[in-house]
């Protein structure tokens, strides 16, 4: 029996051709892929600056002879690295790239609710990204990704303006994407798919979208205020002009704390899909994971002040924010326990995506637990603005969010390109990334507890931090090797990858019921069978060629019965 998965079938990739068929597309799958490659490009850019940071710190320059230009170059490097990685990589990674590709498929629909708005979001994103990248050429952006005034408004060069405009436009892209997902999830679920029959990835995307539309306008306004102050000398944040610099920090973190959950919630969503599929078991505690996503989204709005314990905000506020911060930690912990419980009595397959998934359990464990040290007032005063914080947020943003992104890419790659990447190279890549990651950031925890301040272009010898920096740089080389290998294994598969059946892994969510890659309009029958998203008995293994197939297929389901080459 011929399989349904060959690329010669007409699918969304080969249905139309030419630049405009991609650039002007409203197909959520193509938009998802364009986001994916744009994000990867930005990741390479951000990674380049990361290596520049590491090489500077591990002794390229000498503390005594480092010139002002070299210091500026370093300050520029950590700013560009942070800003690109946050605004152009982690924030759009899962929601915009994977979310766009997967959400309508998981819902069994043809597209998102507003396909043209979706295209507009992508074009806005490109404009924002271009402005951002332009700052690299017009000046020496050196404010840190946090843009704190009065430094950003009165003491540094004009590239702040393009950067801030870029971030402003990116914000709109993010808001529109969130809006689109919220409407799509509310309005386009198949009738049988009640809220509590929805895959957890959708819950996570939904919770993320709530944050995107509620928090992003605030950063938009704050950044505009920076522009107003910088260009028109209207005093908002600068004391000499009658402003208050701490006010900016409130505005900034009112967005940027929720934003860290824009980064991690989708990663947790991917994680829930991975763990269920690769344990071939219903996810443990479905409802509590779903509700934890919503709880996190809500609580994330009331903890921002934990970034400001030493800023001069009132002590009472600090106390309240500390208490509230723990309220976010509880639902995060619950998720981790649920994932582990899912492994119990499962049938665990160590595929490439699952290796990323298992890494996340450990790395998010460390990232989350170290968050407790920072949520606690007495200890945060000591750790604030040291490398302890740097290590903490890399464990959550790289170790959890980025690994979730990578796990998601490998998981849905068969759906995107019709080929499976699950071989020695891709597994070794994950292992290298895991080991390298820990080598890079574990020493930073120790340096941080020794008092090592962040955003320093060099450390004097007497400070005694050189060892941590060298270890960290060594680790970053291993990490980079792993990531390059991972990307390489994906690229190679595009040429001669192993063809994928509709459902190579045994997922039960709807996207696995359509051929890989899907046809232009996602499903050949409409709508596909909707069952419990984690009832693994609904599919059974039929061998390499056919992958997993539904146990009780509908008679008219073409991806099960036979192939109708559709064109």
């Amino acid at each position, binding site marked *: 029996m011929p399989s349904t998965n060959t690329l010669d079938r007409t699918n969304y990739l080969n249905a139309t051709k030419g630049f405009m068929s991609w650039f002007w597309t409203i197909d959520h799958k193509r938009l998802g892929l364009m986001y994916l490659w744009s994000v990867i490009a930005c990741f390479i850019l951000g990674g380049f600056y990361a290596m520049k940071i590491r090489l500077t710190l591990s002794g390229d320059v000498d503390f005594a002879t480092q010139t002002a230009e070299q*210091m500026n170059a370093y300050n520029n490097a950590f700013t560009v690295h942070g800003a690109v990685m946050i605004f152009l990589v982690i924030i759009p990674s899962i929601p915009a790239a994977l979310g766009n590709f997967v959400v309508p498929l998981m819902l069994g629909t043809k597209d998102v609710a507003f396909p043209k708005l979706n295209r507009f979001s992508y074009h806005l994103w490109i404009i924002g990204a271009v402005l951002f990248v332009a700052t690299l050429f017009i000046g020496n952006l050196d404010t840190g990704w946090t843009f704190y005034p009065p430094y950003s408004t009165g003491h540094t060069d004009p590239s702040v303006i393009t950067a801030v405009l870029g971030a402003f436009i990116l914000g709109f892209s993010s808001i529109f994407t969130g809006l689109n997902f919220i409407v799509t999830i509310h309005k386009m679920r198949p009738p049988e798919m009640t809220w509590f029959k929805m895959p957890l990835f959708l819950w996570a995307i939904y919770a993320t979208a709530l944050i995107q539309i509620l928090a992003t306008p605030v950063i938009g306004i704050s950044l505009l205020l920076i522009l107003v102050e910088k260009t028109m000398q209207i005093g908002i944040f600068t004391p000499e002009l009658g402003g208050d610099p701490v006010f900016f920090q409130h505005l900034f973190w009112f967005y940027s704390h929720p934003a860290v959950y824009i980064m991690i919630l989708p990663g947790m969503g991917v994680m829930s899909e991975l763990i269920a599929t690769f344990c071939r078991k219903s996810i443990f505690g479905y409802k509590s994971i779903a509700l934890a996503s919503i709880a996190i989204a809500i609580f994330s709005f009331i903890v921002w002040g934990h970034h400001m314990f030493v800023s001069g905000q009132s002590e009472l506020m600090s106390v309240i924010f500390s208490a509230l911060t723990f309220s976010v930690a509880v639902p995060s912990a619950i998720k981790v326990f649920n994932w582990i419980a899912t492994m119990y009595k499962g049938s665990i397959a160590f595929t490439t995506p699952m290796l990323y998934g298992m890494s996340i359990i450990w790395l998010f464990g460390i990232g989350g637990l170290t968050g407790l040290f920072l*949520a*606690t007032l*007495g200890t945060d005063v000591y750790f604030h603005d040291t490398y302890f914080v740097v290590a903490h947020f890399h464990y959550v943003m790289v170790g959890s969010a980025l690994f979730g992104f990578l796990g998601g890419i490998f998981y849905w790659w068969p759906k995107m390109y019709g080929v499976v990447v699950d071989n020695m190279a891709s597994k070794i890549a994950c292992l290298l990334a895991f080991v390298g990651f820990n080598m890079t950031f574990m020493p930073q925890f120790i340096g941080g507890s020794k008092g090592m301040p962040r955003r320093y272009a060099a450390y004097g010898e007497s400070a005694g931090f050189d060892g941590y920096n060298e270890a960290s740089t060594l680790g970053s080389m291993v990490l980079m090797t792993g990531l390059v290998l991972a990307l390489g294994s994906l690229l190679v598969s595009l040429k001669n990858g192993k063809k994928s059946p509709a459902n190579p892994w045994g997922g039960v969510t709807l996207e696995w019921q359509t051929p890989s890659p899907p046809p232009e309009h996602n499903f050949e029958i409409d709508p596909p069978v909707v069952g419990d998203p984690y009832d693994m008995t609904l599919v059974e293994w039929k061998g390499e060629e056919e992958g997993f197939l539904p146990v009780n297929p509908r008679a008219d389901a073409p991806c099960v019965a036979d192939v109708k080459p559709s064109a």
Partner: protein
Amino acid sequence: MIPVALLPTLLQHTQEDFWFPTQAARDASLVDELYYFIFYVSLFAFIAIVLATAIFAVKFRRSKVGLVPEDSPHHSTSIEIVWSVIPSLFMVAMFWYGFQDFVATKQIPDNAYEIQVKAKKWDWKFVYPEGVESFGGNIDMNDGGEGMVVPLGRTISVRMESADVLHSFSIPNFRVKMDVVPGRYTYLWFIPTELGEYPLYCTEYCGTRHSRMLGKVVVKSEEDYAVWLEDQVIDLATLPPAEAGFEVWKKNGCAACHSTAGVNGIGPFLNNRYGTTETLTDGTSVTVDDNYIRESILDPNVKVVAGFSPVMTSFAGQLNDDEISYLIAYLKSLNE
């Protein structure tokens, strides 16, 4: 509650250890004890996570159990309550101890000895109640400063202000940190308990030389401190002008940006500079004479030497006419 019962055994760590720099102030131990409490709770949780995943991964691997796992529950309200409530209790304890310590370290005692810290890009200046001043003091930078000198065992409060952007005042050995915010005063306090010298860092990013905004804190015995204070009271009028100028130079941290050894830093080096002709950023040139030096101190960014950025802050209001004259004499004396 369990955490409380465990506390004493968990808190054996004092002094220098793997994680922290030595404790040199009374309340430093509060931070460390709290840290170790959270650390051991977290370590326990982490080991449990790692063990559980590792054991499950081995026991329930697909190559062993096959494709269809045996039946197991999909949720369990009692287990879920247990693993929500127990961590929450520990978190309540963390919050509570953190809150207690925070409040304790925030209330400045009435009888404190107040040193003023004046932060600007990129140096620290310390002003003592006796009217004496000192600055900087980083060992690796060799900036000539004496650092912030404090008497052992006395309660010291620090009142901080910034002339330009945000800075943050951090002494890891004392476990204290507070942002220095332009436009308002911020405070912190400590009781130094160990003689010695301890690094001081700026921990809020403040521009090009953020990483050089360093200093040290020197803890002296009461007697040594009294002697030191006395030594600082220099009557400039009794010194030859060039030497008086050198004192002014040191006190105001000019060396943070200007070398007197012939290498350019943030600003041009200033030895052999008097009397030379400099090209300015606008292409015109100027002779380094008394008036130019005076202008450069009071209104530094009007005439900037080509190749440098207008980053120097004005010293107007900080230096009086006499002091400026002494500085001019000092710079003159640097011509060979």
